């Protein structure tokens, strides 16, 4: 291959994340931050509420923070759904490409996973300290870990889960954006598939028998499979949005 043909290709991939896109994304991320802070504060308040109520009615036998694990996952799902379905139109209207939008969505998923898994681990750490002082157990069910004190596994599971839920949310948003209500709904089994596969590999929720077999695999194999699912999801996201027409916003 001659130099003349290879240079534009390299140039093009560099442009997918040109400084204009990054500057725009930073501004968009800033407005996301407010929502994130509000969400994690709310989650903390709920956790405290659970503890208070449990103490009133009976004894604390289980991690309270763990009850909120689904909330953390589905919230990242919802955020990415709205970012994708609501963002692509204004983004292209500002003169940026769909390709760079997909790249930024992937980055957003990664940043969300990093921040959310850190917050999730922090929650468990705080709970561990408080519960230890009172002699309450911090055990959990249906997780990679059996107890909130296994912080490494807590972080790993949250990281993988948010990566997948975020990817799935982006896929659902993209399917509804591209295909409208009917296609968006009909493709839900596909767009939600990453979540199903991952939960069966991580926690055994969703699909009973398959899950049991999935849980038998060694952890590194499961982790790699999940990362592959995320990568595949991003490729599909690119294919769905690649030639998407920008809709007229309803007003």
């Amino acid at each position, binding site marked *: 291959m001659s130099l003349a043909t290879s240079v534009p290709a390299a140039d093009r991939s560099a442009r997918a994340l040109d400084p204009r896109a990054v500057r725009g994304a930073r*501004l*968009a991320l800033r*407005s996301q931050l407010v929502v994130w802070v509000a969400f994690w504060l709310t989650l903390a308040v709920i956790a405290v509420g659970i503890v208070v109520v449990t103490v009133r009615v009976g004894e604390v036998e289980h991690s309270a923070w763990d009850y909120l694990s689904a909330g953390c996952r589905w919230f990242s799902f919802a955020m990415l759904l709205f970012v994708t379905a609501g963002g692509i139109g*204004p983004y292209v*209207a500002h*003169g*940026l490409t769909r390709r760079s939008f997909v790249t930024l969505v992937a980055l957003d998923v990664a940043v969300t996973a990093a921040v959310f898994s850190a917050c999730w681990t922090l929650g468990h750490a705080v709970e561990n300290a408080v519960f230890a002082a009172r002699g309450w157990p911090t055990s959990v069910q249906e997780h990679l870990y059996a107890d909130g004190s296994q912080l490494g596994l807590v972080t790993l599971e949250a990281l993988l889960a948010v990566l997948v839920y975020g990817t799935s949310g982006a896929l659902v948003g993209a399917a509804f954006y591209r295909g409208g209500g009917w296609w968006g709904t009909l493709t839900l089994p596909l767009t939600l598939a990453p979540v199903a596969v991952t939960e069966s590999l991580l926690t055994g929720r969703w699909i009973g028998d398959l899950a049991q077999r999935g849980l038998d695999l060694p952890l590194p194999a499961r982790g790699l499979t999940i990362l592959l699912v995320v990568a595949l999801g991003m490729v599909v996201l690119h294919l769905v949005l690649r*030639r998407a027409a920008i809709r007229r916003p309803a007003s």
Partner: protein
Amino acid sequence: MSFGVEVRDLTVRYGRTTALDGVDLTLEPGRIHGLLGRNGSGKTSLLSVLAAFRPATSGTVLVDGEDPFENPRIMAGTCLVRESGDHMDDKARATLQIAAAVRPTWDAELAGRLVDRLQVPLDRKPSQMSRGQRSALGVVVGLASRAPLTMLDESYLGLDAPSRYAFYDELLADYAEHPRTIVVSSHLIEEVERLFEQVVVLDHGRVLLADDADALRARGATLTGPGDVVDAFLDGRRVLERRTLGRTAQVTVDGGLDDAERRRARDAGLEIGPVPLQDLFVHLTASGDRP
């Protein structure tokens, strides 16, 4: 910097609907073009393809010599403002900040002046704005982006009259200082026709006319006088409209008259009048009247 546009045999279909049907078109760079057509004539579809908002079903589209679809350089230099507005549902201030960050040619001073003149409420989201305010936000983004290809798709029609005139003034003043290719689409022509240097008329997804604005203004004529005299003069000309009042007839014909014809008409006792662009447009695109 200005982007020119070349369109060859462009077709756009949505399911079974054909929005554009074999459009051929050249927009010269650095001019203000009027894109005229009735509602549903394909104006928005054409502009959407030029702005890479949607792919073409078939045909060739070149903006500044390149296919605009997913082309970072062309898309960065192309700004289409649609009537509905394509803004995030965030405060207008945030939309303008993002536009300033991503548009290489953004002019913050112009944006500030337009926000004042058109009274854009910076602390409101598009969903909280009136139609006029949303239009105004679109106009600010469209003009201050100063894109080499700027397209305003009826976006200014939601403005009230004083704001519309402010918009025309700012458009002309900024265009004179920073010439670029500007396309203004409209179905209301009288108010904007003098802004145009060139005019394209779309009808049923095809290009009906594309010419110099002055040439189009000189294209038609009305002949008024006794019915039989008018008829004798018509001589195979294409009649766009005919009205009669008693013995007097007024006929609008397609095609200008040269000096000799004018003299002949006047000597025959006919009165010759101009056909405003708006009327020519209405006659040519009236339903069932296709060339």
